[in-house]
């Protein structure tokens, strides 16, 4: 499937894109949160906050379908993501804590494989262009092993540039290890995605970074429960 062939995302007015209905998370016998209800409409950004161990990453993994909810369900356009299976995989880009890069492959090869798994066939030129826009000009062919932590993050984030037509972005601490220029770049990218009618779920410690997006922001704070 060519990038250009993808239809533009048009939000549905009635049904929220993503909905959490009475979701509970139990890890290691401890309830991290329960009866969590939340709706994310097209063009909105859900920012998950909470102290360490509050279950931020677990919530994000639940939204992706990697972690089944102990109770309740996660709905994508009114349908349970359990029932959607792989079809949900096409609607979603998940960037986790680990950058999911292979040290021995070049940035271009990493980017191409990541997009291919998400259902996008990306040419070398497109990948190279995305990497240049992500602030890595001339680094596309070198093995990722030689890149710094922040540069590796940029390689992972370059996938978002190629995935503008994928409606849901789930990002775990995307601002980690980024310098201020890259932070601004990512904010612009998120803004463009939201304007286009996409939805974003992310965790972030930085308050400043999302200042430009406040009108689209849905804050969600997970409280650490006393055990």
């Amino acid at each position: 499937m060519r990038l250009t062939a993808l239809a533009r995302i048009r939000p549905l007015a009635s049904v929220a894109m993503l909905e959490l209905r009475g979701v509970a998370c139990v890890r290691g016998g401890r309830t991290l949160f329960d009866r969590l209800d939340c709706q994310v409409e097209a063009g909105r950004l859900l920012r998950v906050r909470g102290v360490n161990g509050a279950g931020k990453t677990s919530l994000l993994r639940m939204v992706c379908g990697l972690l089944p909810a102990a109770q309740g369900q996660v709905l994508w356009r009114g349908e349970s993501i359990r029932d959607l299976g792989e079809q949900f995989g096409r609607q979603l880009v998940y960037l986790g804590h680990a950058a999911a890069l292979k040290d021995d492959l070049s940035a271009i090869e990493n980017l191409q494989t990541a997009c291919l798994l998400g259902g996008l066939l990306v040419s070398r030129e497109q990948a190279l262009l995305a990497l240049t826009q992500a602030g890595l000009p001339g680094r596309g062919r070198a093995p990722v092993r030689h890149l710094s932590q922040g540069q590796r993050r940029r390689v992972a984030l370059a996938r978002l540039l190629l995935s503008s037509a994928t409606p849901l972005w789930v990002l775990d601490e995307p601002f980690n290890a980024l310098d201020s220029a890259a932070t601004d770049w990512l904010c612009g990218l998120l803004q463009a995605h939201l304007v286009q009618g996409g939805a974003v779920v992310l965790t972030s410690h930085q308050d400043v970074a999302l200042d430009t997006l406040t009108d689209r922001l849905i804050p969600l704070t997970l409280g650490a429960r006393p055990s």
Partner: protein
Amino acid sequence: MTDAPSPSLPAAGMLQAMRGLVARDLRLALRRRADPLSVLVFFVLVASLFPLGVGPEPELLRTMGPGVVFVAALLAAMLSLGRLFADDYQDGTLEQLLLSACPLPLLVTAKILAHWISSGLLLALVSPLLALQFDLGAAATGVLLLALLVVTPLLSLIGAVGAALTVGVRGAAVLMPLLILPLCVPALIFGTAAVEASRTGMETMGHFSLLGAFLVLALVGAPWATATALRIALE
């Protein structure tokens, strides 16, 4: 409703994803050449230790040759299978595989295929050299090569289930062979029996039919079981 999820990824896209994954894993194997090579050297060394250990009696070597080669291949496969999913698990690629638009069993099949090409196939191709030191003769050597070409993908398939079950588990390197080796016994028995039959001038077709049946069965069942095990492992 132009934005409703389409029924499923077109078959062409799935094939592309599978081909891309095979290409990636083979490229990784090429860039980390030491990994597949060490497995190959291990295979040759283990099989070569036996003639040194049991003495140069030709008839004895001919009798135990096929069995030794198969056991060595089995052990060498265990060596490489430990890394099948462990690397992907550590760098987060495994999560991306689980979230792919392509069904997980198909991606797992692609990974198993790449694993077989970069380990099992090499072992099979080297085996005629080992047959020489056991003085197996031309016909038996051919059968040995053919039997290994059927048995090694079988090992990769069965091994993938074990690798998936033990992904992220402490002590996986020991646990996985304990899970897998008993399941490989039929492949070992019928593989060696085929070579033995050819050496003594008997019909080998029956053994190959059974090995083929095992291979088909594993081809259908193992990717699905592996995918399920991976989903559980990553919860």
